[in-house]
């Protein structure tokens, strides 16, 4: 990786009960990142004391690499990003889930892609090229593909994966977008990409493998489908 000397990457890791996954994800980040970076852990008062684990990791890798910015209680993803951005010192920000479904090995590819096309945003995608998922049954795949098809038809977003949350942003772009987005939770990811297009930002894509370690349908309940439908309609009517 030919990292530009001035470029620094801040990885935002919002955590909630990730005591088991956090050490692994941090270890993998350290292994795969050869550039200038910092890992900002935003723990929302996890009952399993994820913060204690984060402190141990800080002891091993140092306060420069591991930055702890905990919050008292669970306040939602959007505000976690705002909180993280405030403390980020990099000019690029990488957002990913801390549950190991997003593998840090893709980050060098994100960085390369960004440099190659001078993109404002690079989004990981499960839906093109070598991208894919692990741990999804047929039903879940059909729902996911159906939802994605509907989204592409209705919103024409110019990006293939709207609900994924493994992305790299220019810091100033992310700042502007977080302020432009009003949705919460799941729909937030969709709105970010749609608004990005609206504001004229360029989006590059990198295929990723999404390893879902939670088997079954626990993560795709009726509630999530309703949330998705609402979000889709909201964006359809307003953007």
């Amino acid at each position, binding site marked *: 990786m030919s990292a530009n000397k001035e470029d620094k990457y801040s990885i935002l890791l919002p955590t909630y009960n990730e005591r088991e996954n956090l*050490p*692994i994800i941090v*270890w993998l980040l350290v292994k795969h990142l050869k550039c200038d970076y910092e890992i900002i852990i935003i723990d929302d008062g996890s009952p399993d004391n994820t913060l204690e684990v984060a402190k*141990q990791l800080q002891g091993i890798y140092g306060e420069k690499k591991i930055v702890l910015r905990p919050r008292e209680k669970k306040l939602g993803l959007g505000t976690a990003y705002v909180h993280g951005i405030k403390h980020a010192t990099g000019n690029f920000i990488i957002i990913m889930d801390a549950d*190991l479904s997003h*593998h840090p090995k893709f980050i060098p590819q994100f960085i390369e892609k960004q440099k190659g096309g001078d993109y404002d945003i690079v989004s990981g995608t499960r839906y093109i090229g070598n991208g894919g*998922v*692990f741990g999804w049954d047929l039903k879940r795949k059909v729902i996911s593909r159906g939802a994605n098809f509907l989204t592409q038809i209705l919103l024409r977003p110019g990006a293939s994966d709207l609900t994924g949350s493994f992305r790299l942003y220019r810091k100033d772009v992310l700042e502007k977008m977080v302020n432009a987005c009003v949705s919460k939770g799941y729909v937030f990811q969709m709105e970010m990409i749609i608004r990005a297009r609206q504001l004229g930002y360029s989006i590059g894509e990198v295929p990723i493998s999404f*390893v879902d370690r939670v088997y079954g349908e626990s993560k795709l309940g009726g509630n999530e489908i309703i949330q998705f439908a609402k979000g889709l309609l909201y964006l*359809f009517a307003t953007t």
Partner: protein
Amino acid sequence: MIPKLFQWLLAGGAFVALWVGLILGYLDSDINDSTKDVILFLPVFVIVGFAIYSVTVICYKTATFNDCVEASKELQQDIKDATEDLKSKGFKFD
């Protein structure tokens, strides 16, 4: 740019206006009767055609959705390696 909803309403409205105009003869045209039958059922053709297209695309994409078995195996190995290495660095697992 106008919202997607209104883009659809505009395009849909234009289509319906044109269709109604042709069916009711408001628009003067020298099309023959068999073509008129086609026009009469045009909305049905469009909807059925789009439905077939949608189902085909979704089925195809579902069938070709990659199963990342290798990635999962790799992650299991990563977890082992990370655990060992972190222990050697003094990290205390539960």
